[in-house]
């Protein structure tokens, strides 16, 4: 969602001057309540309510009272091939966006860390996708992908490569096409985060390594990457979650089509809830999404920690 939340906890915890242990006086509560109450009422509360709804047959606009139906929604979900199709697409999309996003952002960050002439322009440009509303990004790429008037097909025609493919409607091309947009849209945050990490790496280390005759690749492996790793891991994990949960971009680009080939889990749950009114069932989908993502990340993190111990 945002950069601020992307940066998370500092990678290295230097002793901070501000956060010392001091007893809380009662004035602190007065300072906290204005934010705490909305958080509890409009965030934590609805979240718990949402989880509870997953165990009911709640529907919109129904007069009969909502019934507690236990795990029935989850049993139905287990056999809902459409949901698992969308889940698979969601994972494909999340990996397909997150990995190239990271690699491209790393490349750009490394370039921007150099003393190059176009740097200010590049920095400004790299920010644009970030400032744009997701809906506009989607609209913009629809214009690029447009079969007749789009720049992509025009360029291909000029190069003599095929003519007039409808990228967003093709069964085989729709998912790759939206993945490219996802990569484009999310690159800036990742670049800026990695750039900040790079600029925190002590220059002396680089110079020392260069003096020792280490080449660029070796310097990257021995100096840059170790320093960058914590922030790289944090931003990648977050990007993965955000991408898996994303909605607006694909809603505008394909609305899940063609034939469900780009129907991300969020699009599926949205339709289930607000087109068909199946609140309980959609809430159950949300729960499954959270659960699987948490497990995946836990495994990944556990693997990382183990790797660290081995290292």
């Amino acid at each position, binding site marked *: 969602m945002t950069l601020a939340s992307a940066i998370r906890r*500092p990678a290295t915890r230097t002793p901070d001057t501000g956060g010392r242990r001091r007893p809380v006086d009662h004035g602190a509560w007065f300072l906290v309540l204005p934010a705490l109450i909305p958080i509890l009422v409009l965030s934590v509360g609805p979240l718990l309510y949402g989880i509870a709804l997953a165990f009911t047959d709640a529907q919109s606009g129904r007069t009969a009272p909502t019934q507690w139906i236990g795990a029935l929604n989850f049993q139905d979900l287990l056999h809902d091939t459409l949901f698992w199709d969308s889940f698979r697409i969601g994972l494909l999309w999340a990996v397909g966006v997150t990995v190239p996003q990271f690699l491209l952002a790393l490349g750009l960050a490394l370039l921007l860390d150099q003393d190059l002439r*176009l740097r200010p322009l590049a920095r400004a440009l790299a920010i644009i996708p970030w400032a744009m509303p997701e809906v506009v990004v989607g609209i913009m790429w629809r214009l690029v992908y447009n079969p007749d008037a789009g720049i992509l097909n025009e360029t291909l025609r000029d190069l003599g490569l095929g003519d007039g493919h409808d990228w967003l409607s093709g069964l085989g091309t729709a998912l790759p096409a939206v993945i490219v947009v996802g990569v484009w849209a999310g690159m800036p945050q990742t670049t800026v985060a990695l750039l900040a990490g790079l600029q925190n790496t002590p220059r002396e280390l680089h110079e020392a390594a260069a003096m020792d005759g280490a080449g660029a690749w070796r310097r990257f492996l021995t100096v840059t990457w170790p320093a960058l790793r914590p922030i790289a891991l944090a931003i990648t994990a977050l990007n993965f979650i955000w991408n898996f949960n994303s909605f607006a971009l694909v809603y505008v680009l394909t609305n899940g089509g063609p034939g469900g080939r780009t129907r991300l889990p969020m699009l599926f749950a949205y339709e289930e809830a607000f087109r068909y009114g199946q609140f309980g069932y959609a809430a159950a989908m949300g729960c499954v999404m959270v659960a699987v993502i948490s497990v995946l990340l836990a495994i990944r993190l556990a693997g990382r920690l183990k790797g660290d111990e081995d290292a």
Partner: protein
Amino acid sequence: MKTRKGARAGQYLALLAYLVFLAFPFLWLISTAFKPARELASLHPTWIPRSPTLANFRQAFDEQPLLHAALNSLLAALGAAVVAVLIATPMAYVMARHRTPMAKAATGWVVVSQAFPFVLVIIPLFLVLKNLRLIDSLLGLVMVYVVWALPFALWMLVGYVRAVPAELEEAAAVDGAGRARTLLSVTAPLLAPGIVATALFAFISAWNEFFFALVLLKTPERQTLPVVLTHFIGAEGVADLGPLAAAATLATLPSLVVFAIIQKRITGGMLAGAVKS
């Protein structure tokens, strides 16, 4: 020396490739917005419109209530930014200065809140707001935006508070200033730029937000700009490209302007602060 030059050239080449990748969809959007219908219908689209026109902008305003939508977006984004910052600043101060279980829980919530698919929160919120008769109202949307903006507002502000040396506050206290006075005359001025940056960031996020607005706002006159933009794309996915591009270009301008203002703070100060802290 030769390899060094070669490496430089490679770097510039790579940077150029990035610039093209980042810029070309954006330039295409703007170019499309100024193209007359005739040029749009041509099978060989031009990069730069041969006879640029404002007709698409006029048509966009005729087709959809864009001004009204922009006003709605402005109100929602302003409301969200102001309220979020007003209530987040005191809490961020406590979180930054005291290590209490509550501060830890708040930090945990900031992290966890990022992982939840919004659908799990929006269904209950929809039901609650419906009971309060706040569906299809900007007030309801602002309430949702405030809470949605709080995690990152807290995150940014905690960083900014940490950057204000506690010693300054202690010195003021030694000089006999009360708690409120210390906060207002010592801490607040030093924190002000950070607060403004946070508010602007919350503003952009709300201005750009789509999912909550799509679910909560039903009547066209009450919808925000991103939702109204999707009306340009017909049910069959067919769109009138010119007006679509014109409206999309206009909707981006405010965020770009605001972002240009806070860009330095975000890329520079805030990030460095967050990473080092």
